[in-house]
């Protein structure tokens, strides 16, 4: 099996599996809110895990909150911010290439009367900095994605933060770090963002846990009300198991990061060359994160290529689903200005530290076989 769908989800790593198995069988099942010693033990461990995650991410422990997923983190950040900071204005800056967890929230806010300015992006996936400069004066929040999930395009974060610092220091920045975590260096204390979201299962953790970062002095309203857990930011009994699994996944990812990056950069460059040689069009920008490679395959609709690869136990993904009636094409690729026909053949290969060069060679061999066997017309 060759698993090239790591931007969708990843296989839980050994560290996570071992930790979860062990903790499930232990006495660490108490409710961190309980007053007896089982609860106290769980609470102590929960605090340790929170502090550890915070330290790895370059944040303070009271800036880190555990949620159920990246989408919950995004929803809490954006909705929580505008709800709490009504007086700082009703203008928001973003792009149309954000993840749906951001776009759907923004669309709801538009219906509620907020003005959302969507900055156009170039063929390289980068937002037009001049448009940001023009709009930032009366803007209260900017929402961006650190690494785009479909193309791997990296946000010019430093430029954006510097524009903000020069032109409107009051404008907060929310950054979706779901795809960049474990792949790019993340140091929240130095990045200049006020809020950020993360997800466990994209870094070889398990589904059901995400993290929300809210910088001290940034005030936001919670999305989920209840018992006031996690300092009232996210009610609901804390899951020590899920939080610990996140810590284990994060530690492992950060430890392996630099070597994995080097390795995947080589694999990516090999695949880019080989695929381009065969007349396919690489849609990921040249300077994209090497963990994502979006390619338009000549003569194959996205879904057909996906099913062809599936025959050989190779798993990729496509956002373009074709049915005989409605043809859905990736809104992200269209926003990049990519031709609809080319976008409708787009397939995303996404890698993780587990992928090898041998797999990449096997992949290319298989693609050749698929062309020989299944290409029509």
């Amino acid at each position: 099996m060759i698993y090239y769908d790591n931007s969708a989800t990843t296989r839980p790593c050994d560290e996570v599996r071992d930790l979860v198995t062990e903790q499930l069988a232990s006495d660490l099942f108490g409710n961190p809110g309980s007053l007896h010693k089982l609860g106290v033990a769980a609470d102590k461990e929960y605090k340790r895990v929170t502090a550890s995650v915070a330290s790895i991410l370059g944040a303070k422990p009271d800036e880190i909150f555990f949620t159920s997923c990246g989408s919950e983190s995004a929803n809490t950040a954006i909705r929580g911010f505008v709800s709490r900071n009504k007086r700082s204005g009703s203008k928001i800056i973003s792009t149309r290439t954000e993840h749906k967890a951001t776009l759907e929230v923004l669309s709801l806010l538009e219906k509620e009367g907020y003005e959302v300015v969507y900055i156009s992006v170039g063929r390289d996936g980068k937002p037009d900095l001049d448009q940001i400069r023009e709009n930032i004066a009366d803007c209260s929040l900017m929402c961006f994605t650190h690494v785009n999930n479909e193309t791997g395009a990296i946000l010019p974060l430093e430029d954006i933060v510097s524009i903000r610092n020069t032109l409107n220091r009051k404008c907060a920045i929310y950054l979706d770090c779901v795809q960049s975590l474990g792949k790019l260096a993340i140091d929240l204390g130095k990045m200049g963002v006020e809020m950020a979201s993360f997800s466990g299962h994209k870094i070889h953790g398990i589904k059901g846990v995400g993290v929300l970062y809210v910088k001290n002095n940034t005030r936001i309203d919670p999305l989920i009300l209840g018992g006031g857990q996690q300092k009232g930011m996210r009610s609901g009994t804390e899951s020590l198991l899920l939080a610990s699994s996140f810590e284990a996944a994060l530690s492992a990812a950060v430890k392996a990061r630099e070597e994995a990056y080097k390795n995947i950069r080589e694999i990516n460059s090999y695949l880019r060359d080989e695929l381009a040689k065969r007349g396919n069009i690489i849609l990921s920008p040249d300077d994209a994160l090497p963990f994502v490679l979006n390619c338009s395959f000549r003569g194959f609709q996205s879904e057909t290529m996906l099913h062809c690869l599936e025959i050989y136990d190779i798993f990729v993904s496509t956002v373009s689903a074709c049915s005989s009636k409605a043809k859905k094409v990736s809104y992200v690729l269209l926003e990049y200005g990519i031709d609809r026909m080319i976008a409708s053949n787009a397939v995303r290969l996404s890698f993780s530290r587990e992928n090898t060069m041998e797999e990449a060679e096997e992949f290319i061999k298989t693609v050749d076989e698929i062309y020989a066997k299944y290409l029509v017309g």
Partner: protein
Amino acid sequence: MGNVILARMGEVTLKGLNRGNFETQLKHNLKWRLRGFGKLDIYQSQSRIWIEPKEEDNPNFADGEAAQDIMKAVTQVFGIVSVSFAVKFEGDFEVIRKEAVEYTRVLLQEHPEYKTFKVEARRGDKSFPMDSREISAEAGGDIIEAFPQLSAKMKDPDFILNIEVRDFNYVYSGKIMAHRGLPVGTAGKGMLLLSGGIDSPVAGYMMASRGMPLECVYFHSHPYTSDQAKDKVIELARIVSGFSGTLKLHIVNFTEIQLDMVRNSPQDMITITMRRVMLQIAERLAQQNNCKCLITGESLGQVASQTLEAINVTNEVVKMPILRPLIGLDKQDTCDISRRIGAFETSILPYEDCCTIFVAKHPKTHPTKDDVINAEKNINIPNMIELGLKDVETIVI
């Protein structure tokens, strides 16, 4: 005393000397369809079939609400016209009038808004000392006495209370309509060409409603069609089998054949060529499985391959009759039936063949014999048929 289901037979009762065969088949089908509802007694008297649990504590008969699922299953058995949930008991008229009042009491608890009613009595037991008019009048009087808010109304009452006096007595109110038709198994078997669309399951349903047991054939072109598309067809076959009874679904691996066709025959005739091959494979499968006809969901003029000219050139490749129950139906009517049989939501799942590459942008709508000869000159149809028959997965549903 206990709860029973009363099912009324329709067209079956108009049959002459062979009526017995139809009735036997109907009871057999009911038994099969209701196999998941506990041990049941299914017996018949005149044009009615009574279904009652052998064990008293069968939860499917606890009350009208609990009986919804089994009643729905009964309505899906072709040959039944309508279904009611009744209370069955023994005794003379004194018992009957007491039960009638009791039944009304429960009914009024559920429907306090009811103000008018009518009693309809039937007497199967002609030795019973009162005739049906007298039974209705007496029971009606008791009910008004017990519930003064009610008054009798012969035309359009809020509810009708039915009393039947036979070997046992029965009281019930209301009925749900069934799918009518003739019991499946009373006609010969047909092979349905099942795709993932709206039409073919409806076509299968319609032929089954005329007593025809079904088998289905589906042509699968992985990787051009996804495995979800195949799962969808299996689900559609399952929905049809709720009406037709158990059936075999033959899944023909069509990939190689289709690729050969696309590479070696003209694009604008591809659908016609494909259908000609499909029909021939379907006919061979039909012969192998003792089916006497093919069934398609074609409707005249709906798409390029369903013009009269196209039907002519596809029809000619097989000897078996091809039944096309939807041929004169409007698409809207087909959709209505599809909704009624619970197939629509599945049919419109977006897993139709994603192989737009196989469909010509401008297909020939009026193909001639010459077009067909030309289209097939570079492909070996007999080989294709053999290839298709070699790779068939059969699922019993």
